[in-house]
């Protein structure tokens, strides 16, 4: 008899290696009700894609939760909701369309492509500060810094404000990232949102007075059909760009380096043929990507694979499970840096397809190419390799390495 299937992401074994459980869920219970999460867990590629695309699901998962609160948490969170409700990731057309079009006109592929040189400079700057011969925590000393510096530079905000901004961002994540069991997480989330909003309100005021060619100035100036972003939308979008612009890319860099260290033959292959970096980054995004799942709320009663989902039910579509679904990928558990085609779902599908995808790809290409070329003897260092306790995001919290 097999043991009863139950998806519980707080189980340390599942956190370390969720893939065997994902595979069992795909085979035995592809639309799974998780009692610990009180949510549906969807694991097959085609179903995950459906969840991302269907109008039967809503991406505004915060409002129903907020509406259900009856105690003082409701008052505490009202300040957070003021901004989060304006985050594109939680909005629907026609408001989504208007704001997304404005942002598309700012974050163009040409803008991102023009940043390759400055990203390479930032990578050099970060690596130059690492003393040779000493083990480093790759997450803290490289992976956290690179995406943060890149996004701060784009916003034209001083890099030395990062420790402060990072703290607000971490506090805000307590609410969005579904970490459980934290003391006073709602108060901290509110304070983080308040401080970050105040900070960007000041930045926006400065740029209105003295515009530059940074993305804040461009967002202020952007208009589509005569409409510009409102003040609160500008603040919310700066927060989103900052939040979305560093956390996930940090996790991508960490998981990618770990995959390289765990697969020496693939690393050799990349080192012998640097042109493989394009397909390699796509494979890192697929193999153990930073978007573990996307959260949705059922908007209309409907069935998936024979299971009845009811309006208001919470759904987690497991991107990382879909990315290894043998129904869609050959040799799904094998890291193949030349894999093509590679239709992973890591950047999502549909309306909320990641605006920052070209930037994340470019940062990963520049950083990983440099590591492989510059440190032929890089290897894991002693010490714990810890995965974050998070359901929506996936990434390492520590990765000790020797960069030699």
């Amino acid at each position, binding site marked *: 008899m097999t043991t009863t299937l139950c998806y519980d992401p707080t189980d340390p074994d599942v956190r370390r290696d969720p893939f065997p459980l994902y595979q069992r869920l795909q085979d035995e219970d592809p639309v799974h009700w998780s009692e610990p999460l009180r949510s549906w867990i969807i694991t097959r590629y085609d179903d995950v894609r459906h969840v991302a695309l269907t109008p039967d699901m809503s991406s505004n998962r915060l409002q129903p939760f907020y509406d259900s609160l009856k105690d003082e948490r409701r008052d505490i969170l009202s300040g957070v909701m003021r901004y989060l409700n304006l985050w594109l990731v939680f909005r629907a057309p026609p408001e*989504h369309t208007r704001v997304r079009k404005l942002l598309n006109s700012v974050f163009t592929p040409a803008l991102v492509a023009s940043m390759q040189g400055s990203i390479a400079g930032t990578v050099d700057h970060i690596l130059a500060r690492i003393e040779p011969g000493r083990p480093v925590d790759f997450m803290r000393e490289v992976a956290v810094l690179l995406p943060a510096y890149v996004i701060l530079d784009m916003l034209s905000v001083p890099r030395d404000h990062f420790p402060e901004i990072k703290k607000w961002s971490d506090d805000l994540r307590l609410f969005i990232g579904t970490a459980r069991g934290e003391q006073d997480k709602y108060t901290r989330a509110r304070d983080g949102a308040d401080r970050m909003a105040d900070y960007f309100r000041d930045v926006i005021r400065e740029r209105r007075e003295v515009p530059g060619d940074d993305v804040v100035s461009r967002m202020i100036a952007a208009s589509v059909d005569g409409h510009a972003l409102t003040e609160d939308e500008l603040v919310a979008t700066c927060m989103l760009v900052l939040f979305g612009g560093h956390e996930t890319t940090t996790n991508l860099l960490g998981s990618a380096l770990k995959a390289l260290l765990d697969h020496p033959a693939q690393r050799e292959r990349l080192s*012998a*043929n640097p042109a493989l970096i394009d397909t390699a980054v796509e494979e890192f995004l697929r193999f153990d990507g930073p978007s573990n799942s996307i959260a949705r709320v059922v908007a209309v009663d409907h069935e998936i694979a024979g299971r009845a989902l009811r309006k208001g039910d919470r759904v987690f579509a497991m991107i990382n499970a879909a990315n290894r679904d043998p129904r869609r990928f050959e040799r799904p558990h094998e890291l193949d840096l030349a894999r*093509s*085609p590679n239709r992973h779902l890591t950047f*999502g*599908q*549909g309306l909320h*397809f990641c605006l920052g995808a070209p930037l994340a790809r470019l940062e990963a290409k520049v950083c990983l190419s440099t590591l492989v070329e510059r440190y032929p003897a890089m290897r894991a260092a002693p010490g714990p390799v810890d995965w974050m306790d998070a359901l929506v995001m996936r990434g390492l919290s520590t990765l000790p390495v020797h960069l030699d």
Partner: protein
Amino acid sequence: MQETFEVLVERRMQGAARIVTLELAPVAGAALPPWTAGAHIDVQSHDGAGRPVQRQYSLCGDEGDAHWCIAVLDAPGARGGARWLHAAATQGRRLRVSAPRNNFRLHDGSAPALLVAGGIGITPILAMARALHRRGVHFHLHYYARSAASAVFLQALAEAPFAAQATVSLDEAPAAERQPISRIFDGAVRGTQLYVCGPFGFMDAVTREATQRGLAPTDIHRELFASVEPETVSENRSFELEIRSSGQVVTVGPDMTAVDALARAGIEVVVSCEQGLCGSCLTRVVDGLPEHRDQFLLPEEQARNDCFTPCCSRARTGRLVLDL
């Protein structure tokens, strides 16, 4: 592990009017890596401006052969890689290639197969026929080409032990000697596996027929790499959109997207990324053939041609009728 290595052009033959076949041997005794039918290799070549480019070629020999065989078509209007090979890949010359990769793998087991090739698409199909023949799996091969002069491997097919299982249809032949695509699936049993390789339009036509005749999408396999395509990105041409509900006709000029043209006519389509990545603008196509330029639709969804992404995709026919 080495990503690319050199091979020797051991023999070169003019396989058809614009096609040379190259027999590739290992350099200095080392054996070539093994491969399976449907596999291709990357061959390093040069484009018209002399810049290095990679081109994919299917291996068309027998899985057990010690040497590899590829067929290179130099199509008019091609991007160049093939032209350089035609000029430079002479007997005794060394070429740099990748190890074989297979994205077009035959099924295991004994389910019957239909192998369908259009033009130069015969290359992986011929290797598949040899492999299936050796395995004793029932199959039939259909080869469509313009003319006897332009079709490669006609003689090899006629002399093959499975010649009786191959049907060749040439555009230049009288209609009675050509097999319509609709007849390919006559008598196909449930579970038949279809493998199709050739130009996009050809693969679309075959796939559409297969779907109509009840083949499951998972039983339809297409070779997707680009070397069988005409190697040019088509210029933007204007085309028309007909709105089914109203009968209104909107012209999409060469410099605008279908979304732009619809907006000018007062028809709003929901968009998000505006680059063909997200699929938000996906619109049903009732008639006409879209030219898919998105990276959102899965291959089998593009092949159905019943929807397209108007933010970037265009039309291969003069008019698309949209379900709007």
